[in-house]
């Protein structure tokens, strides 16, 4: 601890800007991301093309959008693993309502209503009843997936009306270049990053996650902050689910299997602590991008998807271990 006290005291004149920057987790992540990109750019001719880079951004959009919510729940000191089933579940009202009404807006409203309901249930059980959030969201993960199987009879529900607006949402490109999901993800990222940094809710979130007892004494409504975090997470997962459904063109019962693990891994890789109060959305975004670029680059090198899983797993362990090592030395 003496280290941090002295660096605080010396802050104005303190260590050089470069030094301070280097200590920031995000810089290390950014350098790692650039290293990954440089490596694959050298190794493959087709990697560093606009087409491929924008494709990766489009693919990264889903874990990015859902990752914002998961990161917010993590920062509040809780966990949300229900998102993997939620992305599949919200596609059911989305597609069935669109099929029935031919209205894109009503379909989205139906999806958001289900997402909101799940967020409220998760938040109420975890924040107000005080049930461990891993258990709660593991429970809703089971319930939602089972519900999807029951409702669909383990078959995909096709999109019969094929609205242009719905198709464009997941598959269109802004100016013909940037995939719409990537645009949506960036807008949400900036909005929530501003929200966390400059609005009272952000401060409350970090306070509640860092030390709930102190936050309570400071007059923050700990339960409400956590409740809101769960609702935000479910709504963002819903948006990710809508984008996914647009890409798949149907409500697929097995969509999002394992998505929760992918997002949790990226969020933690991005430096968001499981124990609460620590992390940033920038770090989370870099974590998602690193994993996405690695899997895309390995694909470009014609490396089997199986190896991609193995290598990604190795990277996660190495990155978190390295981070821990750095922290111990600092």
């Amino acid at each position, binding site marked *: 601890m003496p280290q941090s006290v002295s660096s605080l005291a010396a802050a104005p004149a303190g260590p050089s800007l470069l030094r301070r920057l280097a200590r920031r987790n995000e810089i290390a992540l950014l350098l790692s991301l650039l290293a990954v990109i440089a490596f694959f750019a050298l190794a493959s001719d087709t990697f560093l093309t606009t087409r491929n880079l924008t494709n990766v951004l489009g693919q990264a959009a889903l874990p990015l959008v859902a990752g914002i919510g998961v990161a917010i729940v993590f920062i509040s000191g809780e966990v949300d693993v229900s998102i993997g089933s939620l992305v599949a579940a919200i596609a059911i009202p989305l597609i069935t309502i669109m099929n029935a009404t031919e209205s894109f807006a009503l379909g989205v409203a139906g999806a958001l209503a289900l997402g909101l309901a799940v967020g409220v249930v998760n938040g109420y*059980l975890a924040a107000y*009843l*005080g*049930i*461990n959030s*891993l*258990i*709660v969201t*593991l*429970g*809703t*993960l*089971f*319930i939602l*997936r*089972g*519900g999807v*199987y*029951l409702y669909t009879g*383990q078959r995909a529900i096709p999109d019969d009306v094929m609205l242009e607006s719905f198709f464009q949402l997941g598959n269109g490109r802004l100016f013909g270049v940037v995939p719409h999901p990537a645009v949506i993800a960036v807008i949400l990222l900036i909005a929530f990053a501003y929200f966390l940094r400059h609005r009272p809710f952000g401060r409350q979130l970090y306070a509640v996650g860092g030390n709930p007892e102190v936050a309570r004494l400071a007059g923050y409504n700990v339960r409400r902050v956590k409740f809101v975090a769960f609702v935000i997470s479910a709504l963002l997962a819903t948006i990710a689910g809508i984008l996914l459904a647009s890409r798949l063109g149907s409500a697929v019962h097995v969509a999002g299997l394992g998505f929760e*693990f992918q997002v*949790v*891994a990226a969020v*933690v890789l991005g430096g968001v602590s*499981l124990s609460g109060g620590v992390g940033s959305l920038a770090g989370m975004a870099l974590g998602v991008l690193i994993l996405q670029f690695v899997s895309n680059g390995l694909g470009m090198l014609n490396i*089997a*998807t*199986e*190896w*991609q*899983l*193995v290598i*990604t*797993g*190795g990277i*996660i*362990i190495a990155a*978190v*271990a390295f981070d*821990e*090592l750095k922290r*111990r030395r600092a």
Partner: protein
Amino acid sequence: MSLVSDRSQIVLLGILALLCIAISLAAPQFYTGANVIAILRQCALVLIVATGMTMLLVAAEVDLSVGASLAFTGCVGMDVTNRTGSLVLGTLAALAFAGGVGLFNGLVVTRLKVNSLIATIATMMMLQGGVYLYTREAVQNLHQIRAFTELGAGYVGGLPIPVLIAALIFIAGFVALRFTTFGRYLYAVGANGKAARLSGLRAERLKLVAFLATGLLVGVAGLILASLMNAGQPTAGRGFELTVIAAVILGGTSLSGGRGTLVGTLLGVLVLKVIDNGIIILRWNQDLQMVVPGVVIILATWLDLVRRRRDAR
């Protein structure tokens, strides 16, 4: 000391009794000997791994890679037995593999200080990818060794062999957690790692042992599963880790470490498997096998919480 010293187990016993009564009223065949044995056999695989998982959770760690490791171990065991024609070598290979995975998890968590939730998600990914690199299809039983088939399907004294193995492992785990210094230290490490370390306990070593034990138990379960399916299935065991953790948590073991018992875990496994069985016997839609346990783990945890709050008052 009575077996159900922790009162949260009374809640579980009540739930279990209610379930049994309700199901047998609706479907009398629930209480036939064949069905009871079927339930016990279903319980065996989960209980074997849950014994290790309970130790890990008591030590405030978790292992999510058990499902992926279960499938991989079955493939390794079957493949080595096919190649060598020796069940002993196959068994050793499977145990060595699964134990190796446990050891790897343990080393990553205790030496590299990676959070076990993340470390074992990563291991899970590596094993899922790795098993397909190892074999694309199910490894069929080419050796037809009788003892191997007996492992899953055989009986000794009217009880299925997997149930007997699970019972032995359960008793060993129970004694280890309850009556040895290892068990007591594990609770101490889980409840307050720093205090345990300051009082001279080798916390990392204890956790490593718990990871290794869980790995070896996955090896045992993987062999039984391969025997029951008569093949090493690379896709087997998907979601198995969640079932195991749900059972352990349902049994009253705390995720934050230091609290939990194997008797609770046994009850948790029984509750989940009786529900599974009831859904089949009542001819309900089998997809309910995901929904109902989800409701039950939330409900049981909440009931436990309410009871504990009332006690605290």
